[in-house]
């Protein structure tokens, strides 16, 4: 019997009517994991992220955080327990500045979000932490600009800064590199590399180059079910995986 995983699903199922988008998913994310979830479009990868974060309720099965059942907890409560995510399509506070975007997340984590009397500008702790993340993601020059006016690639980095502002124990990144120019994707990997080792990071990604640079473990999903799991070398060598998904991506 293994020790409890950081985040785990047991027999997780989700269907919308007759459409099964997750089928009996048993998935473990260990402490300190650098784990990638890959699979063809429509395989149910984002559904898994939504089930893990509480955006969706499973039809059957359980979600465990460090062995504790969190299946019934709402999204906001799971965030307080340390599960943070980014979105496949940017979900930012577009009319606000980069600094404000990150401060909103940090303020919630530090419990400042409900404080009505003290000016937000006087929360030096919130600002300092937000600024640290902004510097880390090389967004310093854009900090005072409105997010809506940034290039899409830079907006992707704000997306990640907000998630890091929650100081998560589990970080779920849904296609973080989509839209980031490949010359800048190292900023993303560098930022993840500076995270404390014990954080478990799950990345859903189509960019195989990024996946194999980042992941120490890979899970392949097909049609809502787990198809294969292993180290990057095992997955790369798996003929069935290559035929259903990777195709020519690793050839040559």
């Amino acid at each position, binding site marked *: 019997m293994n020790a409890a995983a950081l985040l785990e699903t047991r027999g997780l199922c989700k269907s919308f009517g007759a459409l099964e988008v997750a089928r009996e998913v048993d998935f473990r994310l260990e402490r300190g994991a650098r784990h990638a979830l890959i699979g063809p479009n429509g395989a149910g990868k984002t559904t898994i992220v939504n089930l893990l*974060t509480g*955006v969706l309720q499973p039809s059957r099965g359980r979600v465990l955080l460090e062995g504790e059942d969190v299946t019934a907890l709402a*999204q*906001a*409560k799971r*965030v*307080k327990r340390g599960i*943070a*995510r980014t*979105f496949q399509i940017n*979900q*930012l*506070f*577009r*009319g*606000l*500045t*980069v*600094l*404000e975007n990150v*401060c*909103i*997340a940090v*303020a*919630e*984590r530090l419990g*400042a*979000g*409900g*404080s*009505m*009397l*003290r*000016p*937000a*500008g*006087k*929360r*030096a702790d*919130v*600002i*300092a932490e*937000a*600024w*640290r993340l902004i*510097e880390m993601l090389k967004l*310093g020059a854009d*900090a*005072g*600009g409105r997010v809506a006016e940034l290039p899409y690639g830079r907006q992707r980095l704000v997306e990640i800064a*907000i998630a890091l*502002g*929650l100081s998560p124990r589990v970080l779920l990144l849904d296609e973080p590199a989509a839209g980031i120019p490949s010359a800048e994707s190292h900023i993303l990997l560098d930022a993840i590399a500076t995270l404390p080792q014990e954080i478990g990071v799950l990345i859903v990604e189509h960019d195989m180059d990024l996946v194999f640079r980042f992941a120490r473990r890979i899970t392949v999903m097909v049609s809502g079910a787990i198809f294969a799991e292993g180290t990057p070398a095992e997955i790369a060598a798996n003929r069935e995986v290559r035929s259903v998904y990777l195709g020519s991506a690793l050839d040559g």
Partner: protein
Amino acid sequence: MTPSGAAVERFAGRHRVRWWEALPWAAALAVFFLFPNHLAFGTQLLITILFALSLDLVLGYAGIVTLGHAAFFGAGAYTVGMLAQHAGWNEPLSGLVAAALVAGTIGLASGFVLLRTHGLTLLMLTLCTMALLEESANMAHHYTGGFDGMPGLSFKPLLGAFPFDVLYFRPQYLYVLIVLLGCFLLARVLVHSSFGQSLTGIRENILRMHAVGAPVRARLVVVYAISAAMAGVAGGLFTQANAYVNLSTLGLERSAGVLIMLILGGHGRLYGAFVGAIAYMVLEHFLARAYPTAWQLGVGLMLILVALYARNGILGLVKR
């Protein structure tokens, strides 16, 4: 590295009072001394500004689109009126407190139910809440005076020393101005706080606010109740200053009017309530004199111009 740079300085200093923020209040005082014959109109204007300010908290900051905000204005107005008429409770300041409590409680209760929804559903439900209150006030004529309302109310002198003046409105004007200043300062503190910042987050992207762990609905209900209490104070002032209350305080016309004013002036920036209410009411005041039958044409024209060329309202034209 310590936080530095223009972005941080701007963020950290946003709550500081600017010199020009004294101007509206100086202007309001100047009106008191320069136009003593227009203080009745001035008093209505200040009350409307307060009402628009309360709407700005929910609409401009939290992004709650409502067509039923007059429900709270009317609740405050009728609270003060009924207390004076039936309970002999006609001390002005405690009357305002009662108005705030009643309107705030209605805001809390209705917000708790309504704010599960959003968009058009929410818009219709706020409208329904107001219609229910309006019809209740109409039917309970034994208590509310029904369609005729309660005319000829009388109130005790302010602080026991300054009696209301139903002809020239001098004490009312200053009284309303001071209450407006108090409510404005409260709103100003609120929107610059971390709470206010989280409201703008909800307005900008409610999905992401859930994902950063914010108790979104609780925040919305709280600001809705605060805004309702403030609208209730505006309604209470209306009844006290005019010495009457009627169904017009609870109607769609008042709700829609204040919404138009806020959009006209610019929402989500506090002073938009001032600019919008003044622009709308001054235009209405003088156009109605010049063209008694067709004054709404002028107001409509102004709205079209703002919608076409100033999407963020009149204040949106001023570069920050």
